[in-house]
Structures are given as C-alpha cells and as structure tokens.
C-alpha cells in the first residue's frame, strides 16, 4: 500500500501569545513543530504499512527549514520525504496550497491512500485536505477517528460528526483527515533518528511540479488577508473574596441570569 501523508511545520501553540503590553505576538523562543494532528496521520500511515506492507511518503510545502519536520517524520517511520518549496509559493492560501500539493502529488505518481491531520494549528482552517482530494479527483472523509478495515478497493472508517460518528465505506484511492484520538503517536527510535539524519529529501520547486504561476502563492490565492489585529481583550476579571460560602453566594448572584 502506497501512502502519502501531508504534513506542515507550525509554530508551537504554547509559545504563540500576545505580549500584553505591546499587543503584538511575542515571538521569543517560539519553536517550530510538526503540526500535532499530522503526527497522528503519520502514525496511522506507519501502522498501516506495518500491517499491510508498502511505503509511506511524507510531503510538506513550506520554506527550506520545513525539512526538519520531514526528518522527524522519517525518524517516526516514514520511508520517503518530499519538500515542496519555492519562493513563488509564499502567501498561498488554502486554495493555492491544495493546488500546489496536488501538482506535487501528480509529479510523484500514484498513491492508494492520503492521510492528513484534521487541520493545522496555526491557521485552523481544515481546508487543504478536502481541497487536495478534489484536485486529485478522489473521495475524502474528514475527522476520521478510526480505520476499521482496509480492503483492496475500499476501506471502512469511523468519522466524527457533531452528534456522534458515522461508519463509512470509501473507495480507494481516498484521502482521510484524522483527529487525534485515532492513535497515540510513537516517539522516534534511536535507529529512526539515525535513518533520518542520512535520509535524502526530495526537493520540488514550482518548475519541477509544472505549476501554473497564476495558481500558486499570493497571486493564485482567492483569499487575501486585509488586516491582522489582536483580539478584543476581555473585561476585568473579578476574583471574589471572603469565606467559601460568601464567595459562592456572590457567584450565584452573578449567575442569576442563567438560572
């Protein structure tokens, strides 16, 4: 089974926050990590490979330093890694990103299954996975919490809904985006780390994937950011004082509109 996993390098959420005095993003010590959902997608791919054989290819679009997450992916069990990187990709929104990844996949050849994280934690859009599936003209499911069975031509998965979950059969090749309760990702082994160090990363530029210049980067993006600003601060907070009974009484007073 040939599996492709799309991953993204993102700033670590716990480090990203607003400086309360300047109201800008504090960036001291912001580390880059593999998008947490993508780790679950990768783990699922590696488990499927271990069960059914085949190989796992990780693909990322990003700046040259995104190579770090590709090496991490190899350390965690991926076989091949592809960095889709070009200055011309800068400013891509989800539409242009899906287009670019689609071109990259078509350059790489056929896969039986594509796995992505449900969304990246920097943009939180959850749009690139579905967009990529449409580009490749394959069916997709989002928010998959379990792959139950894998057959020659189809697989059966559980997909989360707002009010429970659906059990769904989908024909292959297909794309699934996964949520974090699908599995517990492994930590890289020493052997894996050694392999990652030596691994050769395939680099793909805009030219290599024969991308249409009008469909990539900022120029190819239907959406554009007009303004970035800090969220409105919440009002002052009041911590009650007095005995527990007094504090509870004060709180219930405030809760009256909801009772």
């Amino acid at each position: 089974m040939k599996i492709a996993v799309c991953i993204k390098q993102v700033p670590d959420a716990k480090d990203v926050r607003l400086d309360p005095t300047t109201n800008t993003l504090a960036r001291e010590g912001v580390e880059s990590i593999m998008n947490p959902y993508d780790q679950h997608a990768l783990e699922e791919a590696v488990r499927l490979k271990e069960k059914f054989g085949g190989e796992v290819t990780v693909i990322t679009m990003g700046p040259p330093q995104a190579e770090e997450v590709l090496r991490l992916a190899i350390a965690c069990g991926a076989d091949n890694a592809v960095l889709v990187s070009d200055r011309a990709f800068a400013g891509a929104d989800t539409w242009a990103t899906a287009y670019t990844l689609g071109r990259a996949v078509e350059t790489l050849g056929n896969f039986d299954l594509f796995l992505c994280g449900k969304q990246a934690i920097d943009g939180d859009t959850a749009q690139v996975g579905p967009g990529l599936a449409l580009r490749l003209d394959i069916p997709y499911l989002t928010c998959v919490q379990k792959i139950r069975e894998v057959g020659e031509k189809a697989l059966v998965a559980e997909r989360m809904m707002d009010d429970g979950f659906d059990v769904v059969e989908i024909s292959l090749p297909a794309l699934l985006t996964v949520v974090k309760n699908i599995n517990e990702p492994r930590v890289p082994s020493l052997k894996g780390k050694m392999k990652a160090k030596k691994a050769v990363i395939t680099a793909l530029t805009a030219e290599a994937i024969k991308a249409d210049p009008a469909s990539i980067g900022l120029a190819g993006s239907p959406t554009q950011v007009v303004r970035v600003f800090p969220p409105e601060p919440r009002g002052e907070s009041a911590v009650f004082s007095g005995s527990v009974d007094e504090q509870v009484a004060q709180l219930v007073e405030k809760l009256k509109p909801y009772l």
Partner: protein
Amino acid sequence: MLKIDKELCIGCGICEEQCAFAAIEVKDGVAEVGENCNLCGACVEVCEPGALVSDIQGAVKTDLASWSGVWVFCEYRHAELAQVSLELLGIGRKLADRRGVSLSAVIIGSGIGKCAESLTGYGADTVYAVDHPDVEHFTEDRYSRILARLIGEHRPEIVLAGATAIGRSFIPGVATILDAGLTADCTSLEIREEDGALLQTRPAFGGNIMATIECPRSRPQMATVRPKVMKAPEFDSSRQGEVIEVDLGSGELASRIRVIETVAAGEETVNIQESDILVSGGRGLENEKGFALIRRLAKALNGDVAASRAVVDAGWIPYPHQVGQTGKTVAPKLYIACGISGAVQHVAGMQSADVIVAINRDGNAPIFNVADFGIVGDLNEVIPKLITKIEEHRQA
C-alpha cells in the same frame, strides 16, 4: 514578493512589531524580510513612510459584477435543522439588505418539506430544497457536487455555511470546484462600504490573533461561520418566500462513499458547540470521582459537560467533550471552568464565551486572566456548595 525601499525606510520597527510571523526585522536601521514572510501585508499597511510594497497582483478570475445575492447552506440531519442554520439566515439577511440583494437558503436532505418552508419565515426569500432519499445521510461528494452546481447556475456573490463537522468537511470541496475563496470559522462578517466586498474576520493561531480576509478577485465569496456567534432571527409567519424543489441529475447522486451506520449520540455526546451553558472540568478534579461533581453542577445549571484535554486523555469523558485547540471551539453564554489551569490551548477553545467563571485551587492559574468571575478554593468544597445554593435559588 514584499519589497523594501531602503531609501524610504526609517528603521522605526513598527513593521517588526506588527508581523505575526516574525518574518521582518530591522537590522542596521533598515527592515529586512526573512523566509517566514507570508505576504499577509500587515506590515505594508502600518508603514507610514510607505517603504514596504507588496508587488503581487493576482488576475481577476471572473466578472465580479455578474454574481449577485446571498446564499446560506442550511444543515439538516436526523430530521432536524442545525441551530447554526438559523443564525446564518440572521447574518445572511443583514448582508443581503446591506447589498440590496435577495437571500436564498439551500437545504439538502430527505423529507425536508416542512423545514424547507419554515426557512422563509426566518428570512429567506428563496429556498432551494434538495429532497431525496439518497442525500438523507451526509456524504462529501454528493453534497459538494450538488451545492457547487446550484451555485454555478445561480451565481450568488456570497455563500455562507456553518463551521460544523458537515460544513467544515464539504464546503472546502465546493470552494475547490468553483475556484472560490473560502474563509473558515468566521466570527464576524461585514460589507465594505466602498465596493461591497465581504470582509470576513476569523481567529487564527488559536485565537491569539484575528485576521480579516477578503476575496478580491473571485466569486462567490465563501465563509464558514462559527456556531453561536451570530444571532438567530425570530420566526415571522407573515414573511413571504418561494420554495423551489431542485431536481437532481442521475450523475449527481453517484458516490464513492457509503454511510453504513450512523451512531447516534447518547446523552453523553451532546454537541457542546450548541450548548448555552457548559461546565468544564480539568486535571484539578484529580480523579473520575471528582469529575462526577462536574456532571452534577452541569445538571443543576441545565447545562452540558465539557472537559480539558488532560481529562479526556485520562479517559474520564470521551473526546467529543474536549474543548481547546485539539478539541472543539465553543462559545456558550456561560462557561464554568473547574480545576482547569487555563493553558493557551484550552483558552483558544473557549475564550469567545460570553461569561467565563473560573474555580481553581491555584489563584495564580492563568485561567483567572480570561475569567470574568473567579473563586479560588477547593473544588470539593466549592462545587457542592454552589450546587446547593443554585438549587435553593431555584426553589425560592
């Protein structure tokens, strides 16, 4: 690319402060752009000397003026309309009135007749009803193909859907088919005075920054909207509207996805995104028995139970109840965080609540920074007393 005119740059550093991606830096009195540049343009806007220029201009992809009207996708599942659909009709009506255009609703499902008719009373001028047994269950391919076809035929300028499991899953497919711009999880939608463009505002980086987005060169302008953010209109039985039954071509019902089973929610798995009151528990409850207090308090308040990641990981409650970056984003009227320290990942999922109450043993916990009201104390003491007091109040 982003270009810097070194002659004009005064090295003030305002661009550096403004950059959410740490991609611009003032070195030796002149701004320099690094690899991280996302071309968001935030720096261009704040640069007073006009030293920063983004020279990328995409081509206009369609005759913008030929697209008119506001459309809302109304979600129908298990014989019920999702609450967010009404909220969308509320904001959709406002946007349509601002633009002086009509508001249409699209509803897809099986046996939707009455529900489709009711949508006119909530503000729709036209309702496109897709009623067929094969679309009773949601599948991405059928839903996106049908909606994209209708949009292509009628050319609305704006299309809105709920940022629900269903909306977030198939709307990106629709946008891809139509080559349209799509903004996820909007919390505010406005029409720009000058040119009638839709300004879509959404949180990013887990709510640490807000971004306003537009679709300058393509139509329709598409957005998914977070539940509970917009106000649902009152039903007005006197409102007139037209319901159009949509015929489906045989090809439109082809699918490579088959729903085998829909596992319905027990009372344990309510959709916390639609709850008005949430009582949420964290690690501070110490064990499963402690978590039972959360259920009791939720019951006393007629609310639902939510949880932090730690609690879900510990298995005290299933994942659909998890609030935060890797769980759900909620915006209830009241959110009571009990024994939750308030890590940024959790806060990202609940900071849009109208009122936040924090109860925690540690008075220095960051949860108190976002809370409107707080009690510092032992949960095992505070919560039972709170329940008693609430019950007393109800009986009084």
